[in-house]
């Protein structure tokens, strides 16, 4: 049962459940059978006792004829004593006789023997034959008339005790209890052994499933049985092989997809780059053609400035594409958050000022220390703030609020621009997606990459006509 996965407690195992059910069934069956047996035996014993009591009384009545007619009390006493254990009578018969007495036809006691000093009142049989009087106690009485040719000359009364029969029944109860315990023990042992044998293939399958879970694709289990468990094991083995084949197909398909995705991305990247570079190149080309055709001997100052702007534009485009295309891995270092962000903020304030937008920076004092790549974070934050500046009108205010909460370092950049609808928000971080003429659509994509490479996230709240708040959350993963 040992394995790397979750181990089922013994009391929840099939072996225990099956054993418990069978033991309960066996115990219940043996107990019911024992009770029925005891009840039947009790009934039978009662019948035998009554029958033997009648026989003893009738025998005594028959044998008492001569002694009664001879008035031989000694013979009567000896006759009674022959049915008493103390007198060495026949063991079985004597053991059930508690007392006995013989009376004459007038009710006078002629002889008595027994254990009870004051036997119950005389039962007059009236010559009706053997009469059993049973009050349900330990002793019942059998009375038999002593009759000669239809004339009653006396009466024999025998008290028959149930003590011996009940003692034997008690002994049987003990033996049945022992049998019950033995049966339960045997049933438990047998069912544990059998059930373990039956569930062994299941255990092997569990082990195999765990191996598959741990990466052992194609694991096969060996089950020799030809029953349902054998069929299940064969199905399991087949499933394992199919899983391995399916996984290999997935890997192949994934590799192809990645390759296709890369090609597609590369195509898209190249198309966007070409598109961004085409306009300035066209402008420069027209200026250079005019000069070459001799319309003008040289370029005037305005034309030169236009060409320089186009070149600057191309440089900006190429720089952005390189920044996105050649993503550098994060090289985290431990830095104090507040000084780093204040430094970045100062650059952003200057950039805003150039654009006619007031960038207001608020850095909380207790930000602590965290591990990050300053260059990547600076790049991400600058892109977010630049985007806010670009959508703001002249004289507008962009606030950068740096604080700390339970999730980590929190930088909220809020503008009062036109805001975004849901459609725009859904594509906001996609590469090359932009709503601004002349924009590359890479700024926020690069920002998201930088933040997510640090294990952080970017959240956007925007209302059309009221502005947007972009919040960068960075976790404190290093020493503070």
């Amino acid at each position: 049962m040992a394995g790397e996965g979750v181990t089922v407690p013994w009391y929840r195992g099939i072996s225990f459940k099956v054993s418990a059910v069978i033991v309960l069934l066996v115990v219940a069956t043996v107990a019911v059978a024992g009770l029925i047996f005891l009840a039947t035996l009790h009934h039978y014993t009662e019948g035998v006792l009554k029958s033997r009591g009648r026989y003893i009384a009738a025998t005594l009545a028959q044998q008492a004829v001569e002694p009664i007619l001879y008035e031989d009390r000694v013979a009567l006493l000896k006759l009674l004593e022959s049915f008493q254990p103390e007198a060495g009578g026949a063991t079985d018969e004597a053991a059930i006789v508690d007392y006995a007495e013989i009376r004459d036809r007038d009710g006078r006691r002629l002889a008595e023997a027994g254990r009870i000093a004051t036997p119950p009142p005389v039962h007059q049989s009236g010559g009706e034959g053997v009469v059993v009087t049973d009050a349900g106690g330990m002793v019942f009485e059998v009375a038999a008339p002593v009759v000669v040719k239809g004339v009653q000359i006396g009466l024999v009364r025998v008290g028959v005790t149930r003590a011996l029969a009940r003692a034997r029944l008690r002994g049987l109860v003990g033996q049945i209890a022992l049998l019950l315990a033995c049966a339960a023990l045997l049933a438990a042992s047998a069912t544990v052994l059998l059930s373990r044998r039956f569930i062994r293939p299941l255990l092997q399958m569990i082990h195999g499933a765990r191996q598959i879970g741990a990466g052992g694709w194609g694991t096969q289990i060996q089950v020799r049985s030809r029953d349902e468990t054998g069929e299940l094991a064969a199905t399991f083995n087949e499933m394992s092989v199919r899983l391995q084949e399916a996984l290999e197909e997935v890997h192949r398909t994934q590799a192809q997809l990645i390759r296709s995705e890369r090609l597609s991305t590369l195509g898209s990247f190249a198309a966007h780059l070409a598109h961004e570079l085409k306009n300035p190149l066209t402008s420069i080309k027209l200026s250079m053609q005019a000069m070459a055709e001799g319309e003008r001997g040289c370029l005037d100052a305005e034309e030169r400035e236009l060409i320089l702007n186009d070149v600057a534009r191309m440089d900006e485009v190429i720089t952005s594409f390189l920044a996105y295309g050649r993503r550098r891995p994060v090289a985290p270092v431990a830095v104090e958050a507040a000084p780093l962000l204040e430094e970045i903020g100062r650059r952003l304030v200057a950039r805003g000022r150039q654009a006619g937008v007031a960038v207001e920076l608020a850095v909380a004092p207790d930000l602590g220390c965290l591990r990050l790549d300053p260059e990547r974070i600076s790049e991400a934050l600058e892109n977010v703030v630049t985007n806010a500046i670009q959508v703001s009108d002249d004289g507008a205010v962009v606030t950068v609020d740096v604080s700390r909460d339970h999730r980590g370092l929190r930088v909220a950049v809020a503008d009062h621009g036109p805001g975004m609808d849901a459609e725009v928000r859904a594509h906001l971080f996609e590469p090359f997606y932009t709503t601004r003429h002349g924009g590359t659509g890479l700024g926020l994509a690069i920002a998201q990459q930088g933040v997510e490479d640090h294990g952080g996230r970017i959240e956007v709240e925007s209302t059309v006509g009221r502005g947007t708040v972009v919040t960068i959350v960075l976790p404190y993963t290093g020493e503070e």
Partner: protein
Amino acid sequence: MAVRRRWGWVLVAAALLCDAPVAGAAGAERGLCFAISAMVSPARTFSDYQAFMRLLGKRLHQPVELKQRKTYEEVNELLRTGNADCGLVCTGAFIHADRHFKETVVAVPVVHGEETYHSYVIVRKDRPYTSFADLKGKVFAFTDELSNSGALYPTYLLAKRGETPDHYFSYTFFTHSHDKSVEAVARGLADGAAVDSLVYDALVAAAGPCALATRIIHRSPPFGIPPVVVSPKLPPDHRRKIARALLTFADEPEGKAALARLGIDRFARPPAHLYDSVREMESFVDRFRRQHHAVVE
């Protein structure tokens, strides 16, 4: 219904009917005690005597109780002490008692017109014995020590030959009733036995299997039939009342029917010298025993 032959050995004293009840010798608080030493099984005796006892009580205006004892000696003792008022005793027991205390015969039964009976010596049918002499060295069953037909007569036969039972037979024992002696022979317990002719004839008439398995090899001369006697303790007037009751018992159909169950025709006064032959046999045996004892000592 066939006429059932009953025990012809029954003897009862007789008395005339009288109005006053007979006070028992033991006192007026109990009824009359009639003692019998059962010559057949006591249960059969009890059953057969029920009607007779009831009718006798009616005649005497008092209940009559039947007392049975195993041996003749015990019956004699009941009569001697007055614990029984009257009784039917074996001839041998009567002769024995008559020598020690006075038992009065009040009536004798008449069976088949006779007041006598015999002693039979019987053997099993498949045995080769033809005479009493053939039983020498064999096993012999006596009925009772005081029985005339069952003990005195065969002892007398041996005494006349100068033999005693202990010497003549290889082994002897007492059965205490004639039917048991018949059964002992039939079952092979004894090679021979001496029994009452009245009992044996009745058993044969009733086709008793044991009786039919035996045969008679010797028949004695007639002896006085067992009588009905009264206790010496019983007052004379009571004796007369009992005698009257018995002698008139068969005068009415009811009494005749009760006696018929016992195989008795009627009761009669005892003839003179009825028991002389038995007395002579007993004297002879007694003398022989004394002489034999003297010789042995």
